[in-house]
């Protein structure tokens, strides 16, 4: 098998995607609706990916759809028992393999957050719907050429050229893309006559693209102790009320987040036939935890914001003994109608837990340090599988991941 990196000229990209579409349902980030519409969403269309703008939504819908049928049911008159009806349950046919081209590396890392959840916890069964799709999905990310002001992947172990969870890393250079396989599945999809072998110059060009992108990141932050800091703040109602004051409980943050995964299960029926659906839900909605007795443990939005941030940086890493459940994609900041900034909440929480570290309660607390000198990715030469673009930046959180 050819382990070399490949190159595809920009003009040939659509041809290659079309070739892949014969074997996969190929998803690309594309403008929703009109040309001038702002939103970039993932669509099952193997052409003209929008790679100049960060997708508005995350790629999670490819593996965890907004709404999907869990089963179909049908009631039929039972010939043996007059008056009674028999019940037939069917599990919908599985869809075929998917491939995503052009997702940012943080979206791929998002799947690494969802994986342990859907694999099943504490001896429970795994989620067959998620696992089937996940095991058959090939991820080709494009390295980000620049960070947005809302990006903070480097706070949580990521980087604009992170390869974590990827099958192929694509880096835009000169007249096309350098394609580096990272898994056997990645090698397989790069086995195409349309692709050229990448040369040393192209490898070097990619390397400087990664470097340049690292430089566009904002200040870094040390997230060590976030778990304890949030737990210590649990009963500080005033803190959470102040932080949540502007929240509209619209749920946009959870909807766009690559690592938010909660869902609802509902039935829809017409006559004797129907379907049971699993659909995205949001812990930012007040009815989410409403109990039958009328009691609601998260009646106010402060409690709900506390749960969302607590889940990402405290409960999830505690339960799964792994990374934080946030990949720093910044969508919950960028698309929030009231610009609630999860970074600010975290920074304040950490500052309160480290009073000795400097000036607490400022907008730029002592925990924020200037970006570390960007470490450069190793050029992917003879053995790109072993090369680790993005491995350069590993925060403390990744060390116990």
């Amino acid at each position, binding site marked *: 098998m050819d382990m070399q990196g490949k190159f595809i000229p920009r003009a040939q990209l659509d041809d290659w995607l079309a070739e892949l579409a014969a074997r996969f349902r190929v998803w690309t980030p594309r403008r929703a609706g009109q040309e001038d519409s702002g939103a970039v969403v993932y669509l099952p269309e193997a052409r003209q990916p929008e790679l100049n703008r960060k997708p508005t939504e995350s790629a999670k819908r490819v593996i965890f759809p907004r709404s999907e049928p*869990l*089963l179909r*049911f049908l*009631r039929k008159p039972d010939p043996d*028992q007059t008056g*009674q*009806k*028999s*019940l037939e*349950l069917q*599990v919908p046919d599985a869809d075929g393999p998917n491939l995503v081209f052009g997702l940012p590396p943080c979206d791929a890392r998002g799947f*690494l957050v969802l*994986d342990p959840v*859907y*694999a*099943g916890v*504490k001896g*429970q*069964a*795994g*989620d*067959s*719907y998620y*696992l*089937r799709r*996940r095991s*058959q999905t090939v991820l080709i990310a494009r390295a980000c050429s620049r960070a947005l002001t809302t990006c903070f992947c480097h706070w949580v172990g990521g980087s604009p050229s992170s*390869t*974590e*969870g*990827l099958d192929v890393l694509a880096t835009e250079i000169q007249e096309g893309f350098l394609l580096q396989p*990272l*898994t056997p*599945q990645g090698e397989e999809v790069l086995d195409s006559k349309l692709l050229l072998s990448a040369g040393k110059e192209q490898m070097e060009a990619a390397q400087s693209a990664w470097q340049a992108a690292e430089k566009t990141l904002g200040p870094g932050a040390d997230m060590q102790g976030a778990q304890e800091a949030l737990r210590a703040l*649990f*009963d500080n109602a005033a803190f959470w009320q102040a932080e949540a004051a502007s929240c509209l409980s619209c749920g946009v943050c959870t909807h766009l987040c690559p690592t938010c*995964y*909660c*869902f*609802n*299960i509902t*039935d*829809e*029926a017409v006559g004797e036939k129907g379907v*049971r659906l699993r659909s995205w839900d949001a*812990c930012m909605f007040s009815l*989410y*935890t*409403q*109990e*039958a*007795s009328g009691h609601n*443990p998260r009646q106010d939005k402060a*409690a709900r914001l506390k*749960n969302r941030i*607590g*889940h990402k940086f*405290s*409960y*999830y890493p505690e339960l799964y003994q792994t990374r934080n459940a946030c990949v720093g994609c910044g969508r919950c900041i960028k698309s929030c109608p009231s610009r609630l900034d999860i970074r600010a909440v975290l920074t304040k929480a950490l500052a309160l837990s480290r009073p000795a570290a400097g000036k607490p309660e400022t907008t730029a607390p002592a925990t924020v340090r200037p970006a570390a000198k960007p470490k450069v990715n190793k050029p992917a030469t003879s053995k790109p599988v072993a090369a680790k673009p993005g491995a350069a930046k590993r925060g403390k959180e990744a060390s116990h991941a």
Partner: protein
Amino acid sequence: MPDTARRPVFEPSAPNPYLPQVATVLEVIQETHNIKSFRLRLDDEQAWAKFSFEPGQLGQLSLFGVGESTFVINSSPTRKDYLQFSVMRAGEVTSALHGLLPGDKIGLRAPLGNSFPYKELKGKNLVFIGGGIGMAPMRTLLLYMLDNRTDYGDITLLYGARSPQDFSYAEDREDWLKRKDMRTVLTIDSPAEGWEHRVGLIPNVLTELKPSPENTVAVTCGPPIMIRFTLQALEKLGFVPEQIITTLEKRMKCGIGICGRCNIGEKYVCVDGPVFTYAQLKSMVNEL
């Protein structure tokens, strides 16, 4: 290759955790004006023969076209002619369940969740304190203990309801009141004609009964407000948090620790619960 190893594997033969088993309603019992009990049995003979559960575990009942809701299995594993669920009318699914008749088909996902520590409770005295529909989860443990009577010490039951008409399990109650190997105390909130038992709120009656905490475990289930005051009363009587067991009713969906609905911090009521000791609740984030 570390990245491939990380991709979760899909086992095509693994069971689909969302697919309910089809069951048939054998009997419907009108317990109170808003509570009905349903006795049911799985249609698949093999699955039914293999089915087992422990006292305190849950089931998700499905009415296809309406939805799925969580209920505790309140029959005892020692009596395997049927599984019993008691359903209080609260909304959409529970109202539709109340329309079920014997012979109707229903979906069941069970057993889910943890159970009462019935093995660890051997040799202990038990005080059961139940309010309203909260008697349902305790019934399964109580029946189990009565069927294994010699394994346990003294058993006291304090069962309260708003009015005489709000008690469930008429047949059981008669038996419990008659039995010499347990003490049964019933109470209602305010006086009612013809009522021969206690009158008063559960925590107050409990304080009057003054059960000794010596080698004793208290099990309590009921509405949140009752639980709160019952816990206070128990602590005043000298029960320590490790000696108090309760069940929680957080809203649930998947029942298998995935959907995230039922969390209290990093704990999930559907897999870590619904049964918790008061000591465990105290170690969790304060969000009951």
